Structure formats: structure tokens, C-alpha cells
């Protein structure tokens, strides 16, 4: 459905009723207080010494290495979780079977786990103290305190996003459309591509955005398994921490503000999808 326009297109005057205006006010105030303000604080710190200092922060080999590592990590973790998430949502939302609630709750679990613990479990699995970890180190295979550990921790932390975003929506939509398609002779894949996917595309988009945001922004878990080696195992969040601890506030907040531009990605992705949907509707 199309959202209602609250201002007159030509005059720009408000024309909503009291409730809608109140709701808009509450939303704006709430988001401004809880999200916009902290974001503004980040940018205020980043630009404290002017835009030159801001851009200079990125011209640093350690910063670039951190950006590369973060992109690599997200590029592995997000697609894997999307594949898993869609599959899990499909079997949970479209079928009835015992133990479903336990399965859903297990999927939620990584959210409830403190990032410190999320990192720790991989240390417990691959650390030198364990038989497996000791053997791996003998073979010169590095898992923790190297890139694979960072990827694993990120996958763990972002694991539930896609599945959890899709499940409630797909449950609500039910199975009628898919069943109709099957009864008309469609195969499994084409049912998914032609019926299910268009129905869930918004939720899928949100979940990918969230998953990606979290994958790039994760600090706690990654911090435990990374070893903080400059230029080697520092992701953007870890690099920010390093800079902050070195009293380089401007650089720290400048690099952190990069992540704020993920919001722009959201904006662009939504606009494209909206535009495509509109074009399709017209046809």
C-alpha cells in the first residue's frame, strides 16, 4: 500500500489529522533523541578539526587495511547467513513440525549471547589450550587471531538476522499462494522465485541491511578473537578503538563515521526496490 502524503504537494502545507501529526512528532522526537543525536555526536567529533583532518584520517595504510578486512568479512558472512536464513525461514514458516519453537529460540540465541562470550566460544574451540587448537597451530593453520576467526565470530553474531526477520512475515502470509502454485504444476524453485520471493522481498532487504550493518559494526566478539594486530587483524571497529586509545579522536570518529554511510546504502537500496516495484505495478 502507498503511504499517505502528509504535506500538500503544491503548497507544502500540512494536511494530516491530529493523530498522524502527533505520531510523526513522536517518531521524529524519539529517533532524534536516541539515534540522530548520538550520530551527530560522532560527526561533531570527526569534524572537530575541520574537513581536512577528517579526510586525512582515511589516508593511512592501517585504516585502509581495516576497511578492506571489514568488507571481506561482511562479503563472506552476509551471503552465508542469507542462504541459511531463507532456508530456515522456509522450513519453519511453511511447515508444521514438533520442536519448532525450540528451533526458533535456538536461532535467536546468538542475540542473547554477550559478544564477549561469542568470541570466547571460538577461543575455547580453537585456542592453543585445546587439543584441536594445539594441533592447528602445529600445522600452521591460523583460525583465531587471524582472518578466519574474525569471519567465524561475525557469522555467529549475525547468524539470526535473516531467518528472524523472515519468519514472522512468512508465517503471517501463510502457504495458500505457494500451494496454489504447486497445484498449477510449478516446481519448488519456481514457486520460491516467482511466488515467495516477491512477497518477502522487503523483509529480505531489511534483514540483509541489518545483517550487513551488524557484520561491519561488530566489536566485542571480533575483539576477542582478533588479537588486535595493526594492519593485519584490525577491522574498522577495532581500528576505531585503537585510534581512540591513542588519543586520535578525530581519526577515530572519522573512521567510525564511515559506518554511518551504511545508512545511505539503505536509502539507495530501498529507493531502487521501490522504483522497480512501481514499474512492475504499472505494467
Amino acid at each position, binding site marked *: *500500500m502507498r*503511504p*499517505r502524503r502528509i*504535506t500538500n504537494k503544491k503548497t507544502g502545507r500540512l494536511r*494530516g489529522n491530529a493523530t498522524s501529526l502527533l505520531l510523526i512528532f513522536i517518531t521524529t522526537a*524519539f*529517533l532524534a533523541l*536516541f539515534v*540522530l*543525536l*548520538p*550520530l551527530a*555526536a*560522532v560527526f561533531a*567529533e570527526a569534524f572537530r578539526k575541520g574537513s581536512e583532518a577528517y579526510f586525512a584520517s582515511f589516508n593511512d595504510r592501517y585504516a585502509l587495511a581495516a576497511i578492506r578486512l571489514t568488507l571481506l568479512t561482511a562479503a563472506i558472512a552476509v551471503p552465508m547467513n542469507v542462504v*541459511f536464513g531463507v*532456508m*530456515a525461514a*522456509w*522450513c*519453519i514458516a*511453511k*511447515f*508444521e*513440525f*514438533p520442536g*519448532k*519453537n525450540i528451533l526458533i*529460540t*535456538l536461532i535467536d*540465541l546468538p542475540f*542473547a549471547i*554477550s559478544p*564477549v562470550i561469542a568470541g570466547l*566460544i571460538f577461543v*575455547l*574451540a580453537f585456542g592453543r589450550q585445546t587439543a584441536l587448537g594445539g594441533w592447528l597451530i602445529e600445522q600452521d593453520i591460523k583460525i583465531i587471531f587471524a582472518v578466519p576467526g574474525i569471519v567465524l565470530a561475525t557469522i555467529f553474531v549475525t547468524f539470526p538476522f535473516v*531467518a*528472524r526477520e523472515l*519468519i*514472522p*512475515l512468512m508465517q*503471517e502470509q501463510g502457504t495458500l499462494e*505457494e500451494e496454489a502454485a*504447486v497445484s498449477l504444476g510449478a*516446481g*519448488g524453485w519456481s514457486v520460491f522465485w516467482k511466488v515467495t520471493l516477491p512477497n518477502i522481498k522487503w*523483509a529480505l532487504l531489511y534483514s540483509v541491511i*541489518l545483517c550487513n*550493518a*551488524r557484520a561491519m*559494526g561488530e566489536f*566485542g566478539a571480533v575483539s576477542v578473537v582478533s588479537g588486535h594486530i595493526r594492519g593485519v587483524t584490525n577491522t574498522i*571497529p577495532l581500528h*576505531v578503538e585503537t585510534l581512540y586509545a591513542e588519543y586520535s579522536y578525530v581519526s577515530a570518529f572519522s573512521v*567510525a563515521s564511515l*559506518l554511518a554511510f551504511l*545508512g545511505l546504502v*539503505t*536509502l539507495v537500496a530501498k529507493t531502487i526496490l521501490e522504483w522497480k516495484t512501481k514499474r512492475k505495478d504499472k505494467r
Partner: protein
Amino acid sequence: MKWKFKQHSVLPGFGMTLGVALTYLGLIVLLPLSLLVWNTSSLSWSEFLKVVCSAQIVASYKLTFGASFLAAVVNAVFGFIAAWTLTRYRFPGKKLLDAIVDMPFAMPTAVSGIALTTIYAPNGWIGYWFAKAGMKIAYTPIGVFIALTFIGLPFVVRTLQPSLDDLDKEIEEAAESLGATKWQTFWRVILPSVLPALATGFTLAFARALGEYGSVVFISGNLPMKTEITALLIYTKLEQFDYAGATAISVVMLGASFVLMLIINMTQWYARKGKK
């Protein structure tokens, strides 16, 4: 019939999707988590109880669960309003608001913590005015609550948005044409159909808050018995090379959150079943 396990359905793909989901879940989540329990087992039962029931840790449970619950409730209410506004109305600045909803995820938790402290510390943008009125926000449980609200917000908004988008305007109009007031339409028609999504958002925000560490340690002040969260105590144990103690507390937190979330998920499931 091959799958006695599930109820019959004409849809394909159950075996494969469930298989992949379970294997992936097992490898990425359950296997590593079982190591937590395994590590705890080096403690005897009485040692375990002594660790997880000490006064300092119990105080931290209270703070963590209390502040997380409160934050999740606030997020559920305001997140609902925000999601509603963002899907239903068009107004200047809407796209910006919509785009920044994900910020609490994208910002590294440490950065959020520092930014929030910049704002709410006694010399901060907002904290200053409260300090003048004799009220402290940062370095008190209120600070913890604010940090937890911040990090949980996207869950509620982003889970609700697709569901609200999906609502059929016609049903609402039908309800109204049958004489229902706006309020009745909301309570009887809209809320029930987005309730699963709202409950999910609430659960996720709550769960996330329980484990949060990075943003809280900057704003909480970390005073034992007063503003120390459980995640910090786990970290403290680790700093002392006490892996068994750290995993013991984690196991308790894990068990508690699992049960809580299971209850919420079950309630939802029964509610849906009752409706059918």
C-alpha cells in the same frame, strides 16, 4: 508418506531446508556453545552455585534483566509508533529517519558507548541540563537503560515495517465501513495481525540487551553492586584467567535467556493456533 514427522503439506523443500538449517545451526551455534557448558563442567556443583549466586553477580542480574526488559518495552512502544509512521505517512525528512534506524547496528558498540556518554555525561549536551537539575544520567542505571534502548531499537522497527507494509488496506476500510472506530480497527484488526512481528521485535531487542557489553561499559560507570552489568563480570573473570567462572556465568545467562525467549515464542505460537 515419508515424513511422518511433519504435518502433510504439498510444498516441496522441507527436507533440504530443515537439513541445511539444522546443520548450519549445529556447526555455527550449538557446537561452540556446547564448549561453554563443557568448560563449566570443570567446576563442581557447589562451586558453580557459589560463582553464580554471589551477591555481586546477583546484583548484576537484577540490573541487566531489569534494564533490558525496560528498554525492550520502551522500544516496543516507540518502535511500533516509529514503524507505523514510517510506513503510513509521507512527510519531509522521512527518508532520513528511515535510513538512520539501522545506525545502532552499524556503529561499533564502543563508538555508540562513547557517543552516548558524550551526550549524557554531566558535561555533555543533554547531561549538562540534567546535572543542573541535580540528576545524573550517565554512570547510573538510567545510563545503562539508555544504551540498551539505543542498541535494541532497529530490531522492533525493522521487524514491524514489512508486516505493516503487508497489511491489507481493504480490511481496515471494511472494518471502518462496518462502523468500527479507528481505535477499534487498530485494536481488533491491525494489532492482532502484526502482533507476531511485534513480539519478535520485542524478544530480539530484549535478548540483545541482555548480552550487550561494548556500549554499556562506557556509560554505566561499572560500580560493583550498583551499575555493573553481568557481561562485564564475565569479562572481569576472563581478565583473571578464570575461564570456568566466566563460562559458568555465561551458562546461567544463556539458560535464562533461552527459557525467556522460548516462553515468548511459545505464547506466540499458541496465540496463532488459538486464532485458527
